[in-house]
């Protein structure tokens, strides 16, 4: 199984790469339309500002190839900003468009709590179960570092987290997977999530 890691310069690409390789996956770092079009599975690790990510997608001319690949059914895992990028837009950069594969706008977490939401938190299953969270107990902690969060979108939310308000922690919709936390920084619990993604991508 080869995973195409979209490398737009985000700081966490090496650690995501290492975490996938530890699980036996072959990885290629790329930012080219050609590689994305040919990808067997795509992981978009993202950290930082929404504008940095979507601008990079445009500069590298990979916005459309990425959206096409995902719509054609290539298994996709978006991490943190990689999840947020699936939506139409974000309050963090109101003038820029996201990939628009899921409806809605990414919004700021409430300001009555400390932001960024930084550290280890637990998630609650939303009801229909989660493939990514298979094998994770309800008291499992994952590492978060963000100030913005995705809206619930057509029932794609499979788990929520709470910081001042509930927000989307994990979403799954057919071949589209997204986690607001950083599995590559979440110890064994995070490794299990990546392993689940690899297994599903392989079965696809």
């Amino acid at each position, binding site marked *: 199984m080869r995973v195409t890691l979209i490398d737009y310069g985000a*700081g*966490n690409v*090496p*650690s995501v790469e*290492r*975490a996938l390789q530890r699980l036996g996956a072959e990885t290629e770092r790329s930012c080219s339309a050609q590689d994305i079009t040919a990808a067997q599975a795509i992981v978009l690790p993202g*950290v*930082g*500002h929404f504008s*940095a990510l979507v601008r990079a997608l445009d500069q590298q001319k990979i916005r459309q190839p990425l959206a096409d690949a995902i719509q054609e059914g290539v298994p996709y895992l978006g991490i943190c900003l990689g999840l947020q990028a699936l939506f139409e837009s974000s309050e963090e950069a109101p003038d820029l468009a996201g990939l628009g594969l899921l409806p809605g706008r990414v919004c700021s977490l409430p*300001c009555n709590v*400390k*932001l*960024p*939401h*930084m*550290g*280890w*938190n*637990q*998630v*609650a299953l939303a009801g229909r179960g989660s493939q990514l969270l298979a094998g994770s*107990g309800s008291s499992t*902690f994952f*590492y978060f*570092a*963000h*100030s913005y969060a995705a809206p619930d979108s057509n029932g794609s939310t499979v788990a929520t*987290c*709470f*910081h001042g308000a509930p927000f989307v922690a994990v979403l799954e919709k057919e071949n589209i997977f997204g986690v607001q936390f*950083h599995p*590559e*920084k*979440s*110890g*064994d*619990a*995070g*490794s299990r999530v990546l392993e689940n993604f690899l297994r599903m991508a392989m079965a696809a």
Partner: protein
Amino acid sequence: MSLARRIIPCLDTDGARVVKGVNFAGLRDAGDPVALAARYNTEGADELVVLDIAASRDRRPTFLETIRRVAAELSIPLTAGGGIRTLEDGRAVVRAGADKITVNTAAVARPELISELSREFGAQAVVLAIDAKRQGDHWDVMVRGGRESASLDALEWARTGVSYGTGEILLTSVDRDGTQCGFDVALTAAISGSVSVPVIASGGAKLAEHFVEIFREGAADAALAASIFHDEVQPIRPLKEFLAANGIEVRLPC
């Protein structure tokens, strides 16, 4: 379900080795950073901080190599710093595998450094390290390894740092550092109450009760210590179990 309070071991290095000592005096070797990092990763540390306390230009490549080797051992977040003066310094540290960058003296001299780093890597990646020392009715910001006063009020500076885009504050009490008589609760509570970002308390920890106190009364979001973890005076797992037994939310890995 709520955000867990974090326990963070800190590796003070001379670039290559972990060292111990107060204010650069009587430094002694305290071990291999890579071996310590691997140990903390499995023992349930929530994050790791690696600092270059020598921060000399010619040792920089050695420190970056240390970050690379430490990062390879970790599946938890890594913060690195010491001597970060420019955006380019920050980039080098992130490229070597750090998730967050700490800035201190250089940010006091030029606060724009914070916004430059924050714009490039996001606020969550920029940690403002403040060394504070009691001065009458307030706390003074100290620079150059805690030896020199910056003639700046610590509360004021913390708020300024946040306005420039820092996502977290690493607050060290110069008065308590190395004393092992407990964190500075008053200082931490004052800073934590006046900023909107998480605060990591540092300096003075020895007993498990000190950690309970800094979370309960100091409103710290995380607590950092060095030698008590390296020497296993306070091993991480039992410390977290003690905190949990005292009603403090912590992550207990399976």
